């Protein structure tokens, strides 16, 4: 177990450095911050002055080092737009994003777990076919369109739910369902194939031979083991889930990190964009790390193989 943990930590460190390099490169190598900051008709001296002011006249490696050492202390510079530290702006918007992500995950699991298990136990039945059809349709659905359709039906036509915003449980219903519908199809297919695979193993046959009822076999023997691949893939898919949350937030004007990021892109407020990108990526990496730890803890086969 100790070797496994150390290996995972080493990998985590490499990925974190990679993330910082990539997010640094997007702003400083692909684009020129000064060009974005100053009006186009600004004079040459003006450009030079700002370049010095922002430390952009130094070698790229030095700039990266400065960026990295500051970022570690939570200093991503001041927002060019709001004149407050970018880190604080992003952090303030974090809770709504996290709640939305968790709610979406909950909805996805609530749909995917029962349907996936049912489809696997009644293979090739009507339920199985129907679930697969819905999953195929769900995977092709652009969720921002789904969100808008929900708003048109439930907010505009039926006037049951608020179209956008944040606060009460009513505000949560549509965004959580939209995000859940994004993740549910894939999860359902994984649960289904996981359970099918496990129902054919020797220990299930043994459990049946010992005379356990079908329910005990499914719940105690099959489901627990089917959980392992599901947890792993949910960990890998967490990035996708957060990506889906970004899309969902912009549709429902959810006051989270994604809306902040999109607004900041429109305002060309790069410290905030950079900070948001780094923090979201760090969250994803930490979740992946935690999932690896949990899976390695439950299933000894994985820590040996890795």
């Amino acid at each position, binding site marked *: 177990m100790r070797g496994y943990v150390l290996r995972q930590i080493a990998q985590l460190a490499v990925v974190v450095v990679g993330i910082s390099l990539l997010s640094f490169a997007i702003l400083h190598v692909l684009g020129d911050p000064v060009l974005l900051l100053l009006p186009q008709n600004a004079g040459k001296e003006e450009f030079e002055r700002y370049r010095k002011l922002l430390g952009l006249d130094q070698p790229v490696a030095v700039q990266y080092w400065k960026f990295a050492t500051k970022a570690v202390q939570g200093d991503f510079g001041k927002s060019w737009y709001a004149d407050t530290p970018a880190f604080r702006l992003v952090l303030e918007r974090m809770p709504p994003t996290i709640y939305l992500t968790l709610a979406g995950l909950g909805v996805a699991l609530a749909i995917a777990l029962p349907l996936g298990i049912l489809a696997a136990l009644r293979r090739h039945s009507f339920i199985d076919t129907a679930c697969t059809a819905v999953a195929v349709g769900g995977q092709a659905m652009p969720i921002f369109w789904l969100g808008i359709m929900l708003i048109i039906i439930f907010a505009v036509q039926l006037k049951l739910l608020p179209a956008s915003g944040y606060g009460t449980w009513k505000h949560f219903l549509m965004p959580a369902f939209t995000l859940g519908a994004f993740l549910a199809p894939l999860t359902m297919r994984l649960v289904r194939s996981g359970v099918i695979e496990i129902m054919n193993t020797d220990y299930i046959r043994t459990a049946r031979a010992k005379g356990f009822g079908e329910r005990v076999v499914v719940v105690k023997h099959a489901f627990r083991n089917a959980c392992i691949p599901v947890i792993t893939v949910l960990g890998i898919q967490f*990035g996708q889930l957060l990506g889906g949350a970004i899309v969902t937030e912009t549709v429902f004007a959810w006051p989270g990190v994604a809306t902040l990021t999109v607004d900041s892109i429109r305002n060309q407020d790069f410290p905030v964009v950079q900070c948001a990108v780094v923090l979201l990526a760090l969250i994803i990496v930490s979740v992946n790390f935690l999932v690896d730890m949990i899976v390695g803890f439950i299933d000894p086969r994985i820590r040996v193989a890795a």
Partner: protein
Amino acid sequence: MKAVSADGEVVLKADQALPLRPTSRRLSLRRVWRFKWGLAASAVLAVIIGSALLAPYIAPHDPLAVNIRHRLGPPAWMQGGTPAHVLGTDQIGRDLLSRMIYGGRVSLVIGVSAVLISSSMGVLLGLSAGYFGGRLDWTIMTLINVMLTFPFVLLALAVIAVLGPSLTNMIIVLGVADWPLYARVIRAESLAIREREFVVASRALGMSHLRIMFRQIFPNLVSIIVVIATLQVARVIILESFLSFLGLGIQPPTPAWGNMLGEGRVYMLNSWWIATFPGLAIFTTTLAINLMGNALRDWLDPHMKL
């Protein structure tokens, strides 16, 4: 069928040779039936591609022609609709159907070009990582892990924010952001193929590395690449339309499904059709592509793990 006795006499004779397999015609019909969904999806896709190609000939109106007297006109079957605008008009009276037909061009061009870029990069990097192994493999794998950590949406958003929105930039961003997916699968496949006898034999015969990679290993990867690329076209189309939906992609007045949806969102209180139909177009296209990709996978290699 004949049975022959020990002294060479024919003792049993069947009046008709029994076919071991069903006739080839029945077999092919059954085969076709197995791919009914894939074939239907391909037909739908052919219609979509055809109408995008022939847009100037089949669109009933100029997609940019403004008709201010008939703005926000509902579809023909609703009260107030006219047969001249079958799907209604948008906020400045442009014909929605014509704009949708033209909008398909943008999505298909971006989808296919981006996938060409990302699959080429993915093949090149994945094949090198898998074939050469060692430090190169480690570097490429780390890069893949870092890239996969970022949600695809977030990466595309950040880069577009710096480069600015345009058709070429969209293709580059979506193409470059998507390669790790191919690279990961191709690396794993070529790792396995590398150890097979024919590769070892090629090496013994003194073939160059490049020749082994592209003439010996690559042909074995074509079907998996084709399947991933097909499915990725759908994903890129969804992402492209999301960026356009946010106003960070294709800029109005150029019709694209995404920016039509984005404009329609503003008017969804009274005119649901502006946002509904472009979204339906995205959904139909991605569904058709996904179904075709799934059928392609089953047809090329039923054991493919994807």
